[in-house]
C-alpha cells in the first residue's frame, strides 16, 4: 500500500506553525536590556483620520531629540524614542503607555494623544508614577482641575481657555469697530467644539455686551457634507460667524461655503485657520478670515522661529503643525530640566521642571514657562490676525496680552470651582 499525502496540514508544518506562534507570543514579553540610553515612550495616533497629529508630533519632537543627542543626551544619556500607534482608542493608549514603561523600559512618557486618550494616559502616569508630559491635549481641565493633578505629569500644549480669552477680546474689538451685533456659531459637535465655542462666546460678551448669538450649527466631527450647515447660517443672516472647526473639517467647510459666497457676506472668525494644515489645503483661501495662530513661522516674527520652521520644512518637506511646536517644546523643557537637575531621573526632572522658564522660538517674548502651580505651559505666542491667500498667509498677528490672559484665567478657574 502506498502512503499518500493526507489533506490538510502535515505534522511537520503544524509543529513549525506552533513554534512560529510561540515566538510571536514571546517576543513582546522579553524585556529589552537596560542600557545607558534613556528610552522615551510616546503613544500617539499614527493611523486613521487624524494620523497627521501623530506624524507631525513625531517630526516635531525628533528635531529636538536629534539636537539633544548631538549635545550629549540627557545628563549624558542619549535618548531613544519609542513611538507607537494607539489608533485613537483610549484603552489602546493606556495599554501602549503601560507597555512602553513596563516592557520597553521607557523612563519618560510623552503623551501625544488627543482628547480622551490623554486622560487615559494620565491615569497610567498616576498608577505607575512615571514622568509624563502631555503634548497635544488642549482640554483645560486636564491641568486646571485639581482632581487631575499629579506631581509627575505636565502639559506643554496650549490651553482652550487661553485661546478663548484672546479670541474673545480680539473679536470684541472688531465687533465694536464694525458694529457686528448678530453672531452665528458653527463648531464640531464634541467636547472640544462645544467648550471652546462656549468660552469664546462668554468672553466675547464680556468684552462686547451687546453681541447676540442668533444661530448655532453643530456639524458632526468628520462630517463630509456641510451644505445644510452653510445654508442654515446664510438664512439666519448674521453679521459675523465663529467656528472652531479644524483640520480637514475646516478646509472642506470653507471649500463648500465658498460656493455660496459665504465669506463675502459676513466676518468669519475661525480659531483654527492659521495652521499650515488648513492654510495650504483650502482651494481658494478667502481673504480676511480672522484666525488664532496655531503654528506659523512668521509669528512670532523672530529669526529663531523662522529658522525652526524652515529647518522642519527642509527635513520633512512639509510645514510644522500646532502639534509640532507643542511636542518640540516638551523636549526642550525636558532637556533644560535635565540640565538643571543634572540628572535624567523622572522625579528629579519633575522637580526641576516646575516653574522652569526656557528660551523658546515659540514664546510670546522669546521664552515659555512651565507654571509651577498647575504644571501647564504659559507665555507661548498667542494672537489673532487675518488671512491672505498666499504666503505668509497671516501677515499681521495681533498678540494677546499674557497679563490679561492670566488674570481672566484665574477668574475662570474660580467660577469652575478649581481654586
Amino acid at each position, binding site marked *: *500500500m502506498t502512503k499518500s499525502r*493526507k*489533506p*490538510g*496540514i502535515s505534522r511537520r508544518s503544524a509543529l513549525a506553525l506552533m513554534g512560529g506562534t510561540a515566538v*510571536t*507570543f514571546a*517576543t*513582546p*514579553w522579553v*524585556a529589552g536590556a537596560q542600557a545607558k540610553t534613556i528610552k522615551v515612550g510616546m503613544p500617539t495616533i*499614527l*493611523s486613521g483620520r487624524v494620523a497627521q497629529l*501623530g506624524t507631525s508630533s513625531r517630526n516635531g519632537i525628533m528635531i529636538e531629540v536629534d539636537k539633544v543627542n548631538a549635545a550629549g543626551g540627557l545628563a549624558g544619556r542619549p535618548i531613544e524614542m519609542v513611538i*507607537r*500607534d494607539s*489608533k485613537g*482608542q*483610549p*484603552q*489602546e493608549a*493606556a*495599554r*501602549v503607555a*503601560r*507597555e512602553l514603561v*513596563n*516592557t520597553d523600559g521607557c523612563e519618560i512618557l510623552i503623551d501625544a494623544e488627543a*482628547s*480622551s486618550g490623554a*486622560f*487615559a494616559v494620565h*491615569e*497610567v502616569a*498616576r*498608577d505607575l508614577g512615571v514622568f509624563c508630559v502631555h503634548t497635544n491635549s488642549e*482640554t483645560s*481641565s486636564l491641568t486646571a*482641575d485639581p*482632581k*487631575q493633578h499629579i506631581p509627575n505629569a505636565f502639559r506643554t500644549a496650549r490651553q482652550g481657555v487661553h485661546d478663548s480669552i484672546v479670541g474673545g477680546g480680539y473679536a470684541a474689538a472688531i465687533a465694536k469697530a464694525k458694529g457686528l451685533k448678530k453672531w452665528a456659531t458653527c463648531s464640531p459637535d*464634541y*467636547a472640544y467644539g*462645544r467648550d471652546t465655542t462656549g468660552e469664546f462666546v462668554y468672553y466675547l460678551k464680556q468684552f462686547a455686551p451687546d453681541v447676540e448669538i442668533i444661530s448655532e450649527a453643530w456639524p458632526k466631527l468628520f462630517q463630509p457634507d456641510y451644505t445644510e450647515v452653510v445654508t442654515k447660517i446664510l438664512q439666519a443672516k448674521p453679521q459675523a460667524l465663529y467656528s472652531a472647526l479644524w483640520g480637514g473639517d475646516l478646509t472642506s467647510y470653507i471649500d463648500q461655503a465658498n460656493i455660496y459666497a459665504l465669506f463675502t457676506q459676513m466676518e468669519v472668525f475661525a480659531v483654527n485657520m492659521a495652521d499650515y494644515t488648513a492654510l495650504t489645503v483650502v482651494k481658494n483661501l478667502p481673504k480676511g478670515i480672522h484666525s488664532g495662530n496655531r503654528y506659523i513661522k512668521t509669528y512670532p516674527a523672530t529669526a529663531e522661529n523662522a529658522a525652526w520652521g524652515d529647518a522642519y520644512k527642509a527635513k520633512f518637506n512639509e510645514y510644522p503643525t500646532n502639534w509640532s511646536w507643542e511636542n518640540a517644546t516638551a523636549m526642550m523643557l525636558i532637556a533644560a530640566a535635565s540640565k538643571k537637575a543634572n540628572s535624567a531621573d523622572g522625579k528629579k526632572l519633575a522637580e526641576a521642571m516646575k516653574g522652569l522658564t526656557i528660551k523658546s522660538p515659540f514664546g510670546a517674548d522669546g521664552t515659555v514657562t512651565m507654571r509651577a502651580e498647575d504644571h501647564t505651559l504659559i507665555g507661548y505666542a498667542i494672537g489673532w490676525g487675518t488671512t491672505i491667500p498666499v504666503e505668509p498667509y497671516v501677515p499681521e498677528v495681533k498678540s494677546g496680552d499674557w497679563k490679561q490672559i492670566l488674570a481672566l484665567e484665574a477668574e475662570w478657574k474660580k467660577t469652575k470651582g478649581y481654586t
Partner: protein
Amino acid sequence: MTELQAERGGDLSAPPIDVKSKRLRYIDLLIAIAAFAVLASLPFLFSSKALLDFVIRCAAFGLFATSLNLLVGYTGMISFGHGMFFGLGAYGFGLIMQRTGVPVPVAFLGTLVLTAVVATAIGAICVRLKEIYFAFVTLAFQMLIHSIILSWVSLTGGDQGLRGGIPRPKFLGIDPTNHIHLYIMSCALLVIGLLLMRQIAQSPFGYTLRMIRDNASRASFIGIDVWRAKLTIFVLSSLFASTGGIIMCLFVSGAYPEFAYWTISGEGIFINLLGGVTTFLGPMVGTVLLLTLNDTVTRLTEHYGIVLGIVILFFAIGLRKGLMDFAVEWYEARRGDKERAP
C-alpha cells in the same frame, strides 16, 4: 425529555443524558480550576508585567466575545450592538465608584443590575426582530447609548470620558490598585464567567437556544416561548459583556465613550470570526489571537489596518471558518482517517 420540559426546568428524569451531562459538568469544573491555577501561577513564573496586562485585557475582551457568541453562535442572533453592554459595564461601575464610594462588590452587583434592567428594556424591543433587522436595531440602540454618553456631559464627562481616575478601594483583602491582585481578580472573573456561560450553553436551555437557531418555527410549534427564551439569553449575555466592561474600567481606571462605540461590537464580531462560533472556546481563542496580533503588529508597524485586513481575508476566503472550527474539523478528519484505515 423534550426541549419544552427541559426549558421549564421539568422534573422528568432522563437518566442516561443526565449522568453524562453531570459528568461533563464535573469535567468543566475541573478544567476551570486547572485553568485558573495555571493563570494564577503565571506572575510567579514570569516577571513580565506586560504579560499580566495582556491576560487582564484577554479577560475583558474574552468575556465580552464569548457572551456575544451565546447570541451569535448558539441562538443565531447576530447582534451588532453588543458593545453597548461593555460600555454600560464600564460606565456603570465607574460612575458608581466615583459618585457613591461603595465597596467594589456592591458596585459590581449594582452595575450588573443596571445592565440587566437596560438589557431587558432594549431586548424586549429587539428580539422580536429577525436577522438583519435585529442586527440593525441593536446597532441603533448602541448608537443611542453612545450618543447619550457623549451628550450627558455633566454625568459622563462627554467625549473626554470619566476623568480623575476610578477609586479602587480594598475589599476582602483584595487591593485592585495592586497589579497582581487586579490580575488574579480578572482571571477569577474570567474563569467563573466562562464556567457559567458553559453551564448555560450545555443546559437544556442552551439546547433550546440551538433549536431556536436552527428552526425557530419548529421550536415555537412544540410550545417553546421563543421570545422569552431569546430575551433571557439576550439579558444573560449582556451581564457577561458588562463584566468584561468592568474589568476594562478597572484596568484603565476610567471609562471612555469608545467603549460603547460600534467599533467595540465590530471587534467582538471579528473575534468570533477569528476564533470560530461552533465551539465554546472559539471566541476565547479568537480574543487571544486578535490581541496578540494587535500588540505584535502595533510594535512593528503603524500600518496595522492593512495587516488586519489581510488576516481577515485569510480567514474569510482561505479558511472560511474560525481557527477553532478549523482545528476541530481537522482533528476529526484525521481521526476519521485513522479509524477508516485498514
